[in-house]
């Protein structure tokens, strides 16, 4: 299958994403901090549509120097996409689960050519 143009880069908010089905192959293209990332729309847990969930900052446990906790805070830098089936969260930049990095989304080959988002799909 030749590489396909799926969207205009300028049409993405930041942070933002679009999810595509191209002939039965589903993937999400994400924009974050001016960069683009693409992941298969398939959660490693039970194949849920991971790219179609909420985009939220990663929750963190805010621990002070003296080991006391300030409770939970949203990260100022890390954004996750959340699988809507069961809540598995994945870092948009790395595709990895924040707790267990071995649990991760599969990358899709993607590049920006001019204003085109171009994706390489396996046959």
């Amino acid at each position, binding site marked *: 299958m*030749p*590489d*396909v*143009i*799926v969207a205009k880069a300028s049409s993405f908010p930041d942070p933002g994403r*679009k*999810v*595509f*089905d*191209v*002939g039965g192959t*589903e993937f999400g293209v994400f924009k974050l901090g001016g960069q683009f990332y693409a992941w298969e*729309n*398939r959660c490693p847990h*039970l*194949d*849920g*549509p991971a790219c*179609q*969930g*909420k985009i*939220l900052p990663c929750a963190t446990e805010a621990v002070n120097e003296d080991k006391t906790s300030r409770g939970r805070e949203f990260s100022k830098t890390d954004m996750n996409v*959340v699988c*809507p*089936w*069961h*809540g598995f*969260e994945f870092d948009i930049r790395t595709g990895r689960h924040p707790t267990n990095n071995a649990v991760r989304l599969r990358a899709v080959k993607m590049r920006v*050519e001019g204003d*085109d988002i*171009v994706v390489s799909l396996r046959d």
Partner: protein
Amino acid sequence: MPDEMKPVRADNIRELQEMTAASDTRDYLHAAARQAQRQYDDYELIVDVDAHLQEGRFWDELVEYMDSDVLRYTAQQQLAGGIRAPLINMQPGMSFQALGGRVPHQSGPGEKVEDPATHGHPFAQIVMRGMDSMGVDYQMIFPTAMLHLGMNPMEDIEINMARAYCRWLVEKVLPESPRLLGLVYLPFNDPVESEKIVKEFGGHKQIVGFTICAVRHKPVHHNQYMRLYSMIEETGKPLVFHAGPHWDDPSFSQLNRFISMHALSFVHYNLIHMTNWIINALPERFPKLKVVWIESGLAWIPYLMQRLDHEVLMRQSEAPGLKRMPSEYMQDMFYSSQPMERWDMKMLEATMTKMKADTQLLFASDWPHWDFDPPSSVTTLPFLSEQSKKNILGLNAAKLFNLPVKRMRPHAKDVIAARARHRVS
């Protein structure tokens, strides 16, 4: 770059929208339909022994069926005042199931349905969408908010809602399709009312069992329940314990996150009821009564088997009614599969061996709750034989609930094709 290498504009491209509580169940479960097509479309029968009504959208209908005009009026006033779960002993601010909106289907169903005059009751329409998408022939419906009623200090609320729920099921929902099955909600805090409700609804063809909502502080071995168990045993239909969460229990009030309470609470109530059931030798008193334990996962089963076996040999005088080891009685009982702890396959395999999953385990989705399992949670287990998967996914339930082994569901490819043109998310 040669022309054939240049990127092309995809002509078969569809943009998919974010999933929300208003998403169509068929879109939400599209991936499950594809799993059905790839993995188990040829199986004889798929039975889902635990799925849920989310009462929110249907309270006004349920309330209409309440016998007490005072409670009915009160509930209607609460609904008019914006209380989403009238008469239910749940604190709205403690509702964390949907993970702050991360798991939207837990907050539904908000989807559109076809005209009820031509397409049937909205709840039945939504349930059928889920069943067809997951490739399920029969689905057993349980309530959600009502699972807490055993802790409601106003006993008449449980009694009234139990009857209202059963009437709503048999009059409004079950007539919509023979694939929909229900269970009697037993107002277990009142044994006499429980007996009445068994008599009234137990003979209905699509009522396949009797539910004790396990979240309650009632000793199941108390003599006041023996007549009820005898009645249920005579029907030949199973007695089902459905677990649930409850943060107000004094021990659980030490837990500061929903995840902690949820992980322990469901199991906790089933542990207590099962222990009372075994130690007081109820399996010996009701040898033909089939007992099912729902929605506590599987890991608790070998734990309790080992724990009780260990103690009973040392303290026979405290469990003199037993003629076999506790684990042997537990191996005669039935268990639903969800939420299946799938992380450590060796532990899961050992658990399934110990509990005799091949004959005793029943697939449950728990749809549309946040920790639901599709049938692929069973078909993808590497250690199960093909026959074991078929047993767990449907044949064990067919035997237990006396269901015909006859395909009722459409083929997965037809389900996918029927939705293809309309899919938006």
